[in-house]
């Protein structure tokens, strides 16, 4: 989730409230204050509210929440006369363009940082790392309309941001830091997206880098915004959030004609919502239509009470998270205050009951603790090395491999539990003997998750007879009718290994662990152990 750095002085100027009140109220609006510093406050926002990712957006919401200025923010737009043409060849590359012109911009350093931070957060949250949406902000006075969004030859050259020599687009992908970072989004296309002005000056190579020509500085007073992407709704979300943030700064927004479509409108959308549905969802039983309207105005919605049960809600253009009426009802609850909602226990009468697998695990635990064993709860992620190589066993072909393991120790999901116990004995080498340990839990083979248990005992006298007696006692207590045949599991010493059968099927193995295995785990004392598949002993649900 994005962490947004808010300049305290700028934020309080915009909000018209002191910084402490702001910090106290931010969590209750749905954010987390990560760090408080003399000059800035770092806030973590949820991914559904990209409109808050700037001092401007935060201040707009805070003014409403704190009652400084409530209701729908009004935006007026007039035409700029600027047009954009989109090349049809971009259809399979990066087809959508959103644009706007911002006039009368007077940015100090804090404002530039706020807008740059917003751009970066939007690239992450809405743009999915620039793949879905990418934003370019240009000094309009350095270029001249009409503008062209086209698919260009890779060899086309321009001076990218932070450079003073022209580079080809292909070269940018190879050499420019931003090019290297985002190359994979466009690399495989035959042509690359490019935005240029009437004279052929390059504004940007979306989604990679802007041209140095249109760099935004404190002397920039008019801005051309380009937002390109592969999903039209997300493109307009970014345009609306950026334009409305500029308005908070005191600038004016003008429309651009993209292939005949005039944008942005910055107009709210309308929804008629039900007071009763909101009461039923939130549990705010005292809610009335006027009260609901008032609460929503605190959240910067526009409202008209239609009747006792209906309120017409105007949703600001930057609120991309409002997908359903319930999203509006949540804002009612937030404005009302979660802590004020009457908290009562659900009245539903039901009878509690454990799941058969968990019930079996509880039984196994009780029996094994009674047999003097200490429970372990090891990881289920393990490696072929621990599970098979160190156990002197063949790899289990049914083991599931994770595609991008994070370390060599966690490459598969366990198919057995005994290797984890051997690891545990290894960790506890310096601890007093005897050590008798067990674990029960889920293992996975192919796609099946099923229950197993294993136990191990290490001390100078640990032997076949000891573990045979434990297996016998365990099976008797769990009601497993078992038979034992000679086993040949290579993890155990030949001639000191038993295979446990139930109803003609092998369900387990026990015996004295082979010194080959002991040595692999760094163990120096005789160890006896067993493992059982418990699939057949789960009660019906």
């Amino acid at each position, binding site marked *: 989730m994005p962490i947004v750095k808010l300049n305290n002085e700028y934020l309080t100027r915009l909000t018209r409230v002191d910084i402490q009140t702001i910090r106290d109220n931010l*969590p209750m609006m*749905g954010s987390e204050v990560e760090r408080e510093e003399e000059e800035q406050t770092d806030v973590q926002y*949820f991914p*559904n509210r990209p409109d808050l990712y700037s001092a401007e957006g935060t201040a707009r919401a805070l003014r409403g929440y704190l009652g400084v200025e409530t209701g729908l923010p009004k935006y007026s737009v007039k035409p700029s006369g600027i047009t954009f043409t989109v090349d049809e060849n971009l259809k399979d590359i990066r087809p959508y363009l959103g644009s706007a012109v911002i006039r009368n911009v007077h940015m100090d350093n804090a404002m530039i940082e706020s807008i740059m931070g917003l751009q970066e957060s939007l690239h992450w949250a809405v743009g*999915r790392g620039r*793949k*879905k949406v990418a934003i370019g902000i240009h000094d309009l006075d350095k270029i001249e309309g009409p503008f062209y969004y086209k698919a260009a030859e890779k060899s086309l050259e321009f001076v990218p941001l932070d450079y003073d020599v022209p580079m080809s687009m292909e070269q940018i992908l190879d050499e420019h830091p931003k090019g290297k970072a985002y190359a994979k989004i466009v690399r495989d296309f035959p042509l690359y997206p490019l935005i240029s002005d009437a004279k052929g000056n390059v504004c940007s190579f979306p989604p990679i880098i802007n041209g140095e020509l249109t760099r935004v500085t404190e002397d920039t007073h008019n801005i051309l915004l380009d937002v390109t992407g592969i*999903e*039209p*709704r*997300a493109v307009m979300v970014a345009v609306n959030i950026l334009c409305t943030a500029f308005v908070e700064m005191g600038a004016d927004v003008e429309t651009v004609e993209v292939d005949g479509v005039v944008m942005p409108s910055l107009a709210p959308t309308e929804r008629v919502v039900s007071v009763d549905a909101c009461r*039923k*969802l939130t*549990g705010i039983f005292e809610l009335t239509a006027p009260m609901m309207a008032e609460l929503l105005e605190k959240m910067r919605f526009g409202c008209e009470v239609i009747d006792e049960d209906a309120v017409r809600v105007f949703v600001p253009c930057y609120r991309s998270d409002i*997908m*359903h009426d*319930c*999203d509006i*009802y*949540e804002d009612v609850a*937030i404005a009302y205050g*979660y802590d004020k*909602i*009457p*908290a*009562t*226990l*659900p009245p*539903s*009468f*039901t*009878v*509690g*009951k*454990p*799941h058969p697998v*968990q019930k079996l695990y509880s039984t196994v635990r009780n029996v094994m603790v*009674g047999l*003097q064993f*200490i*429970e*372990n*709860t*090891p*990881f289920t*992620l393990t490696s072929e090395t621990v599970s098979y190589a160190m156990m002197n066993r063949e790899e289990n072909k049914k083991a*599931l491999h994770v*595609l991008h393991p*994070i*370390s060599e120790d*966690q490459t598969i999901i366990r198919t057995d539990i005994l290797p984890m116990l051997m*690891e*545990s004995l290894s*960790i*506890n080498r310096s*601890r*007093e003997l005897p*050590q*008798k340990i067990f674990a029960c839990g889920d293992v996975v083979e192919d796609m099946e*998750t099923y229950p197993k248990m294993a136990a191990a005992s290490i001390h100078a006298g640990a032997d076949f007879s000891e573990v045979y007696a434990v297996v016998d006692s365990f099976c008797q207590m769990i009601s497993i009718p078992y038979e034992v045949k000679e086993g040949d599991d290579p993890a155990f010493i030949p001639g000191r290994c038993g295979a446990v059968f139930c109803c003609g099927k092998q369900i387990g193995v026990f015996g004295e662990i082979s010194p080959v295995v002991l040595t692999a785990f760094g163990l120096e004392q005789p160890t006896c152990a067993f493992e059982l598949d418990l699939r057949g002993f789960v009660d019906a649900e």
Partner: protein
Amino acid sequence: MDLTVNEKRVLATLAGKTSCTDAELAELLESPAESAVQWSHLCADRGLVVVEKQVEKTAKLTEEGEKYAAEGLPERQVLNTIEGTIPMKELTAHPLSRIAIGWLRKKNWIVMDKGMVSVNHEVADVIGDDEKALKELSADAAGTADLVKRGLAVIEEAVSWNIKITPEGKALADAGLDLREEVGTLTRDQILSGEWKNLPLRRYSVDKLPKRIYGGRFHPNQQILDEIRDLLFEMGFTEFHGSIVQNAFWNFDALYQPQDHPAREMQDTFHLREELPLPEGWEQVRDIHMNGGNTGSTGWGGDWNPEISKKCVLRTHSTSLSIQHLAKNPNPPLKAFSISRVYRRETIDPTHLPEFEQLEGIVMDEGLTFGHLLGFFKEFFGRMGFEEVRFRPGYFPYTEPSVEPEVWVDGLGWVELGGAGIFRKEVTEPWGIKCPVLAWGLGVSRVSMLRMGLKDLRQLYKSDIDWIRNSPARRV
């Protein structure tokens, strides 16, 4: 006074004597001297005898010392070769000169002038204390310490004990002592015959701590999980359990997580090569993602690819099990929970693990509200021992309203313990669920850490056996 038979034997032996040494006592008791001393000390603790330590020092010449005792100290031997005034060079030619010259100068036995050496008879003719001690060695002779320093003699200490009975001990001995052997273990015959009544049974000291028995143990973390399970059973919840491997459909799509959601990417989720088929009714989920379907929602827009949805992952949250449990049981009322391992692609460190336990719960019934969810949390956390609970707005793609409950922990402040909310229509609609569903997830490993004061989550899964051995049992 309860004395062991050995203590009694010491008293009986000493009763007729004024005092005796440990060696004498040992001989009389026919026991090793160490035992005689140990028993005497036990008697001394009770004020029945007095034990005095005696240290005898004896001096002994070393091999080098023996040699000089016969031939004289090196400086004396060299001195004896000086006749009149000789050049220094001549003196250094003597085989013992390396040891001797230093001592000659230190003892002021010679006079040196411009490379010439002569004997300082006034001093050198007096036989020194060290020389006397070398001839007649004793530990307290004046020159012995110098010899020890020069490594020519050593002092040896011999410890012996002088043991004397006190008037109290004497009185006890005179009153008569039962010197029969004590009995350690009772036999069946002794119990049945009644002979036990007259046996001198050995008494045990309560001051000697027993060897600790560890026995079998439930894992401390499992104890907390079982406490939570019992609490939920008491509140009427049914437990569910499910597969570790889920396809993206149940793990993400059915929970209205968009297909390009960052949490679904490789760096956060363990993906598998395997695929699982989509369940019946998947088209409705697709429509909801793309345009809201029949839920009144706008949906996320964009494309929705069933192939992505089939791909398997290690479940990243047990909400994937909740939604399947609901799909199977769409009729109210339903209260259910699961505590399951969940998997996140995190590098292991003290507070992050790639797998951990998550508690997941759902309550479905007619007329349930967000207020009921908050009420449930107050009750649940209260029973877990967290008195103060507050509710912060939260965000999850599958719930609305959403909340992050926090509990107050002294020393830490407000600690977030999970997330919750009411399932969105986009989530419940495809499965014919018509009632509100309250849903919550809780990181129980965090609860365990808080409750047990652990600093490192790994202790829960790779445990020090002594930590388990010494953890208290759960009150049931």
